[in-house]
């Protein structure tokens, strides 16, 4: 039985975007893409739907449960609707743009579709914007990804932007260096992810006291970047972990040199969502915005190329962006000459032309939501 009587009802997590939000989203995407282009990132546009296996192999496997599938009647193969665009970009870099000189800088914007919304992000369809820097393993590349994402977001007027630097590889390096068996890692990650100090103690307490002390110390460390980096340097880390920590310290130092005003924090135990990251990663927050504006970090493409990049989420960004003041809207009488319309548009008016002759142009203007009317060739502002 279908009780979907009301034609306006949409499936959970999907919505119509109305004026002015739809225009705002388009203009924000345009501004962000212009900022990426100005920094040498060329736009690519992968398709909405791909063969399931190319979308979901390797690092894509983690998105399998979030991906809608369709059967392709033409190829008789299973297709997946993209739930994340990063892997498509990596695929393009590894296939069609294989022969282009490295480093390769690519940008993209598009809609993604997910099987389930989360409590914090109930949207199942939203826009992603991102940039990928492929083919460089240098510290400078890490720094460029962070700076570019911050630059792009701050150009939208998001002044309270805060970049949280993460190092997902540190946990494994500390854990295996201190002799924690691999079998304990999933539970350890869960506990660290929640900053559940009691959980970490219970998990490692008896057999791995030195590792426990290190993890508890790391777990308590979230805070301003320079202070945390100094604290990490003071720990007695295993050699492999020290290499990771050194890299993070380099990135922090160069970021600070490049942009003294950027708000930087470090959280050394953040791990969820970074399972496939292989180095310095980051999450973007802003004061008062629920959830993250975006995230990024270092990874390795399917072809083994070193890469870094970031993805921005439009649903959260729109929470942080102020809508620009509405343009003045002017009602023109029917049959106003095209040249006259263009002249008024150049003056900054949005013009709406009446389709029929109306007696009271002022009340008609109010009815159709105009702030001004053209009466006898003169622009008249309407009182509210």
């Amino acid at each position, binding site marked *: 039985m279908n009780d979907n009587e009301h034609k306006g009802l949409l499936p959970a997590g999907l919505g119509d975007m109305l004026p002015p939000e739809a225009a705002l989203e388009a203009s924000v995407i345009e501004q962000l893409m212009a900022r990426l282009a100005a920094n040498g990132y060329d736009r690519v546009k992968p398709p909405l739907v791909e063969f399931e296996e190319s979308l979901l192999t390797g690092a894509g496997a983690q998105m399998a449960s979030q991906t809608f599938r369709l059967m392709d009647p033409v190829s008789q193969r299973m297709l997946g609707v993209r739930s994340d665009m990063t892997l498509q970009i990596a695929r393009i870099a590894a296939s069609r743009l294989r022969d282009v000189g490295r480093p390769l800088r690519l940008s993209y914007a598009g809609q993604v579709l997910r099987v389930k919304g*989360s*409590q*914090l992000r109930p949207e199942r369809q939203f826009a992603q914007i991102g940039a990928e820097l492929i083919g460089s393993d240098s510290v400078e590349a890490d720094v460029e990804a962070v700076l570019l994402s911050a630059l792009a977001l701050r150009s939208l007027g998001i002044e*309270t932007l*805060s970049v*949280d630097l993460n190092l997902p590889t540190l946990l494994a390096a500390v854990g295996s260096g201190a002799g924690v068996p691999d079998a304990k890692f999933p539970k350890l990650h869960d506990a660290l*992810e*929640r*900053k*559940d*100090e*009691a959980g970490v103690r219970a998990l490692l307490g008896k057999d791995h006291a030195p590792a426990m002390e290190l993890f508890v110390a790391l*777990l*308590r460390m*979230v*805070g*301003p970047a320079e202070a945390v980096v100094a604290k990490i340097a003071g720990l007695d880390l295993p050699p492999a972990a020290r290499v990771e920590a050194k890299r993070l310290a380099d990135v922090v130092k160069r970021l600070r040199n490049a942009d003294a005003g950027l708000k930087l*924090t470090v*959280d050394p135990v953040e791990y*969820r969502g970074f399972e496939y990251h292989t180095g310095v990663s980051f*999450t973007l*927050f*802003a*004061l*008062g*915005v*629920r*959830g*993250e504006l975006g995230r990024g970090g270092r990874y390795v493409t399917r072809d083994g190329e070193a890469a870094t990049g970031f993805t921005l989420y439009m649903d959260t960004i729109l929470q942080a962006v102020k809508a620009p003041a509405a343009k003045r809207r002017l009602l023109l009488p029917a049959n106003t000459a095209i040249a006259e319309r263009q002249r008024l548009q150049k003056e900054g008016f949005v013009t709406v032309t009446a389709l029929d002759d109306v007696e009271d142009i002022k009340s008609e203007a109010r009815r159709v939501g105009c702030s001004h009317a053209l009466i006898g060739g003169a622009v008249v502002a309407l009182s509210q």
Partner: protein
Amino acid sequence: MSDNEKLVLALPKGRILKEAAPLLVKAGIEAESAFSDPDSRQLRFSTNHPGLDIIRVRSFDAATFVAFGAAQIGIAGNDVLMEFDFPEIYAPVDLDIGHCRLAVAEPADLAGEDNPARWSHIRIATKYPEITRRHFAARGVQAECIKLNGAMELAPSLGLCHRIVDLVDSGRTLRENGLVEVEHIANVTSRLIVNRTALKTRATTINAWIDRFREVARAA
């Protein structure tokens, strides 16, 4: 925006609040007088810190307020945290209060003849359907949960189901209703919880509160 800048501390009503009150005092938080007045209908209270307000909500809701960032810090039992599994909540300090355990209980006469190894499906009354489902799924048993919000102990005697999953403190309520504890799921204590975004964007302020509660909990 100025109201947004204020920190909100979400406290659970009832049993935990009674135990948490001395900790709050030791942490230097004094709520306005209406907070301790049981007749007051007020929901939000100011404190001696101009930047900190308190809200008093049901224990499950304290976690929800913090998960969505409506409150930045709060107190919640790890039973609630396990049930919801919110990725946006950090639980950095074990406050060492609200001690109890989450357990499976059943009528005493059933416990004697029951062989849990033969179960493929059981029906359970509980306030914690997620924890219950996960717990039994891990050993290959499908748990059909009947969600109740209180007085779980009545369910077996009235034939709603044979077993319950509930918080057990002294075990007295179970005994008085002819039930015995047959399986231990988890130990429960109350935690200081923190919203993820709040910790990242206001690290210094929130860390100061975390440190203060950590010290108070350790000293207690």
